[in-house]
Structure formats: C-alpha cells, structure tokens
C-alpha cells in the first residue's frame, strides 16, 4: 500500500513537472539594451583588468599607423 502511495506521488510529480514552465514572452523595456552584458576589453586573461596596460597597447598600435613617426624612429 505504501509503495503504491509513493509511486502515485512520484507519478504525480512527474506529471506536474511541466507546470513549472517559464513564460516565453519577452518583456521589452523601451529604449534599453535587452541583450547579454559584455565585458570590457581589458577584463580578460591577457590584461587582467589593467585598463592602463590595454590603453598603452592600443596607443602603441595606433602610433604604428603613422608612418611619418615610424620613419623617424
């Protein structure tokens, strides 16, 4: 009798599992970005959150585009 009761409860739980389905309707907030958050370019293993190091790397690369400066080096 006890087994039947347990089996019955387990069965009802399985049947009710689908009742926990989340709403699939997206609610949009007007004028705000709705997607996933993005990290800053220096928040990674290479720069380890060091913004100054990242800015220096970008600045050095930017300077390489100026061939007048490169020619004088």
């Amino acid at each position, binding site marked *: 009798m006890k087994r039947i009761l347990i089996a019955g409860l387990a069965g009802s739980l399985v049947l009710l599992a689908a009742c926990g389905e989340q709403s699939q309707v997206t609610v949009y907030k007007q004028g705000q970005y709705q*997607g996933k958050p993005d990290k800053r370019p220096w928040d990674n293993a290479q720069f380890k959150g060091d913004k100054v190091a990242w800015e220096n790397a970008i600045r050095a690369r930017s300077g390489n585009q100026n061939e007048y400066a490169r020619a004088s080096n």
Partner: protein
Amino acid sequence: MARMKFLCDAERCIECNGCVTACKQEHEVPWGVNRRRVVTLNDGLPGEKSISVACMHCSDAPCMAVCPVDCFYKTAEGVVLHDKDLCIGCGYCFYACPFGAPQFPQDGAFGLRGKMDKCTFCAGGPEEDNSAAEFKKYGRNRLAEGKLPACAEMCSTKALLGGDGDVVADIYRNRVLKRGKGSEVWGWGTAYGKPEKSATPPTGAKS
C-alpha cells in the same frame, strides 16, 4: 581614451580591397556578407576616388534608435555592437544606416533573411572574450587582445586608419600638413565652408 573611430583617406586609397579581404579572413565572414567594402567615385575616369566603408560606429547611431528589440549597445570605447541572440533580422537597421553597414545572410532554400551582421570594430560581441561562441557569432575580438581592427592594420597605404579618434585625427592632420595642402583638404574650411565676408565689418569694443 576617446571613442574608437575609422577614417579613410581618399587621397591614399588605391582600391586594392585589402581591407575587405582582411576583414573576411579575420572573421571568416560567410559568403554574401560584406562587413567592409570599397566604394569608388568616378570609377575608371581620371581623378577617381575610393573610400573604404563599413560601420562607422556612430556617436548617435540610427540603427540603435530604430531597432525594435533593442539589441544594440555601445561600449564605453564608442563601439556599436549588437546581440545576435536577440536580433530578429527585421532589417530596420539596414534602412536606417546611411552607410549600408548592416548585412544579412541570404542563404537557405527560401532566401531567408538571417540575423544581422556588421563590422564590430574587431571587438567581438556579448560573449566570453575570444571564446568559440564569440568567434562564431561575431568574429575575432582583436580589441581584447590589445590590437586594432584588421582592416586598418592591414591597409598597405595606410589610407584606412582606425583606433582612438584623437590619435587618428592627429595622424591625419599631420599627414595633410606634410602633403603641403591646407584647409581645402582638412580643417575648418572642409567642415564648415569658407568664411563668409560680412558686408559691414564688426565695430565697437568687445563686451
């Protein structure tokens, strides 16, 4: 650091399409999608001018304004990016963009219009930096590696400049000065036209 910007020098661009190729190769962009392209005016005529065009990462981006699902965002560095998981491929951004930057893959049996794809300034998207998911959806994240966009770095004549807007402007200004050309090429006169001579000279002391 200021905003990230592109600048194409029409005096230098030789229409080699190196920038287009670099972009295609770097991000493995699918067939039919061109994040960057070279536009030539008066093609074939003496004095033709070419310019490399992609997303200009507008300060007040119209694509962001018209997107019905608000999938666009702007990073602190001024790069306009979007979340492909949210994009519905409606094409409003394409109509709004003055540069024709948003691209839509048109493969499939019924020529479906897929999710929008555009230049990311080589900054990836809202996925883990340099992950497989980010590469698949948005391409390589060079900015997170401390590098500039591949198109600008690959440009053989350095017609296409990319990076911090202030630095790019300095490079271009210096270049124009070295060329020996004045404000007819760059500066106040180009931006606002020649100063108009007022009919009556201003009189009186400054207040």
